[in-house]
Structure formats: structure tokens, C-alpha cells
């Protein structure tokens, strides 16, 4: 049942290279390339994630504000009182 190693895919004309872990650094360029990469990933997604979240926040604050206002007296209702 299910898939098995040896029976998954036949791939031809793919050459792989590898180097021993003892011949390389464990985390090469972790900060020098990593930090600019985080900025790149942020830039590429911020305009898709942020607008709905901002809209959500604005709806939340507006809704609570209007609800609070509705609980207060409106001076215009009492203008004609003596």
C-alpha cells in the first residue's frame, strides 16, 4: 500500500555534486546574505499580507469607536430643551 523507495520515479540526465561536511562551513554567510534575504522575502510579500491586516485593524478600531459613540448622548437631541 502506498509508494515505495525504488518505485517512485526514473530520472535521467541529472548530475548531482556534493562536498564533505568537513570541507565546508556549517552556516556560510548566515548574516551577510541571510539578513538581506529576509528583507527581500519581506518586500516580496508585504503588499499582499499587510493591506488586509491593516484593513482588519481599521475596521476593528472604527467599529469599537462607533459603538462607544452610540452609547453617549448626542447633544443635538437636546437642543430644543428648555
Amino acid at each position, binding site marked *: 500500500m502506498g*509508494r515505495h523507495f525504488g518505485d517512485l520515479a526514473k530520472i535521467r540526465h541529472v548530475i548531482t555534486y556534493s562536498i564533505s561536511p568537513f570541507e565546508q562551513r556549517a552556516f556560510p554567510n548566515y548574516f551577510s546574505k541571510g539578513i538581506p534575504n529576509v528583507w527581500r522575502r519581506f518586500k516580496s510579500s508585504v503588499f499582499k499580507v499587510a493591506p488586509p491586516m491593516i484593513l482588519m485593524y481599521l475596521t476593528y478600531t472604527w467599529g469599537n469607536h462607533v*459603538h462607544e459613540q452610540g452609547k453617549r448622548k448626542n447633544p443635538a437631541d437636546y437642543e430644543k430643551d428648555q
Partner: protein
Amino acid sequence: SGVWNFGSLLGLCLITQILTGVFLGMDYTSDISTGFSSVTHIWRDVNYGWLIRNLHGNGASFFFICIYMDIGRGLYYGSYLYKETWNIGVVLLLLVMMTAFVGYVVPWGQMSFWGGTVITNLLSGVPYMGDTLVQWIWGGFSVDNGTLTRFFGFHFLLAFVIGGGTVVHLLFLHETGSNNPGGVNSDGDKISFHPYFSYKDLLGFVIMLLGLTSLGLFSPNLLGDPENFTPGNPLVTPPHIQPEWYFLFGYGILRSIPNKVGGVLGLLFSILVLMVVAILHTSKQRGLTFRPVTQFLFWTLVGDMIILTWIGGMPVEHPYIIIGQIGSVLYFGLFLVLVPLGGWVEN
């Protein structure tokens, strides 16, 4: 990526809930005269009873965090195209929701009683046999002892039904293997479960258990309702009846429709709509990784669900009513119209 951890995390959640639940069941009594006080007894007298109850209650919240994240991953990366696995997943969601609902009635606090009363009464919307159906579920003419005893039984039973459903869910998943963030065939890239996924899953377990213990030990009542510290009383109605946070989005949709049957159908279809996403998949690409328009719509759905969750916990007053109605229309509009349209535009 990390968002593929939620499947194994759900398995851990289920085991945690079953283990803590079995131990709670050793000292809980499902009678209305002793139910609430047996929970108090567990908390105060049973060795580590407070911790077991804490983990069980907050564990339910983590169960829903994981299930919503698992569904979110499925929607974002087009994993729903594994139709059998996906549809059994939707059934599992419904089972988990039913288990959580009857489980919340068990402690017999005010919110247990009144939440149970509100939701079971919705069945009276069924044509012709509605009222009879509700009384049959209740085992009487209101939520009373008959309801509590059977709900405890259902809660215990459903946990194992979920276990069985999980096995079938995995059976189908293992026919195809998992999806991946690229949405491409990965037959040529398979690696062994051990040590890669064993350690990856273990890391996920550690992070989730860290979250669960942090919540349970630093802020155990953050997600709970204070009303449930009061024993259930049919003569005193709480001013704001609301379910736990994980049901609030559906509660918001239910209350947005000013018709009992309409609201119930809205609630039901808010879950069942998941079963049509595969049919409405229009894009030539599987996931959203290279689809910016639909990505924006996905995050709009996330924002909308948070808004509906907020609205579900608010009183039914202006402007919460209109926000809930717009949010409900947007929810269904996204699934049925906007996302299929986005896929077609991106093609």
C-alpha cells in the same frame, strides 16, 4: 516547510486530549447535581488534577489552532487537490467541532449550560420534525440531566471516532505522499522519515508543548469565559452567551443572518464550503506561491476570519451587525467567487 508540521501536531493534540481526558473521566461524575463540583474536586483534591484539567481545556484550544493552520496550509498550497484526504479532513473538522461542543457542556458551568441550550435549539429549525429532534437530543424538555449524561458519553466516544477518522485520513494521504511548497511532483526527491521528519516533527512537538505549558501555567484562563466558574443555572441567563474562541467566526456568521434556519445553514455551509474548493480550483498552478492576486485574497480571508471571530464575541448592536454581515458575505464570496476568479485571471 514548517507549516507541514500541523498534521503530526494534530496527532499529538489528539493523544494529549485522550490521555488527559481519560484521567479526568476517572473522577468526573456526569450528573447535574455533582458535575460542577466533581470538576472542582479534580482541581483541588486529585493529585495534579489541576494540571490535567488545565492541559485538557487549553489543549482543546491548541487542537483548533493546529487544525485551522492545517486547513490554511491546505488552502494556500492547493493540498485540497488530494480530494479524498481533504474531504476526510473536513469530516474530521466537523467531528472535532462536535467533540469540543459536547465537551464544553460537561463541566456544567453557566456557559456550558447556556451555550449548550442555544446551539441545541438551532436544530428546531429543521422542518416538521425540528422540535421533536431537539427534545430527542436533549433527552427531555430542556437541557437537563439527560443531556449531560449523554453529552459526556458522546464526548468520550467521539474522541475515538476521530482516532479512526485520522487513520483513514492518513491511509489516503499515504497513497499520494505529501504536497510541497512548490506544488510540484516530488517523487524524485523523497527522503527517509527517520531522521529527517522524525526530528522535524519532534521539534514541532517541543514548540507546541512549550506553547501549551506557557499558556496553561502563565495564563490558564486567557481563552476561557469567567461565566463558567458559576454552576449552570436554568433560571439565570448570562448577559452575553458566547462559545469558545474557536467557534466565534461561525457564531458571527450564524447571527448575521436574521432568520433562524438561514443562520443555521450559514453556520453549516461555513464549514461545508471547504468541500467545494477542489471543484472551484481554476488555476493552472497548484499552490499560491507564484500567484500574487490569490495570495492577496488568501490574506483577506485570514483577516475576514479574524474579524468574524471578533464580531462573534460582540453584542448584536450597531455597528457590529453590519460588519458581521459584510464579513459573512465576504467569507462566502472569497471561496465561491473571488478565489476562482483570481485563478482564472492569473492564468
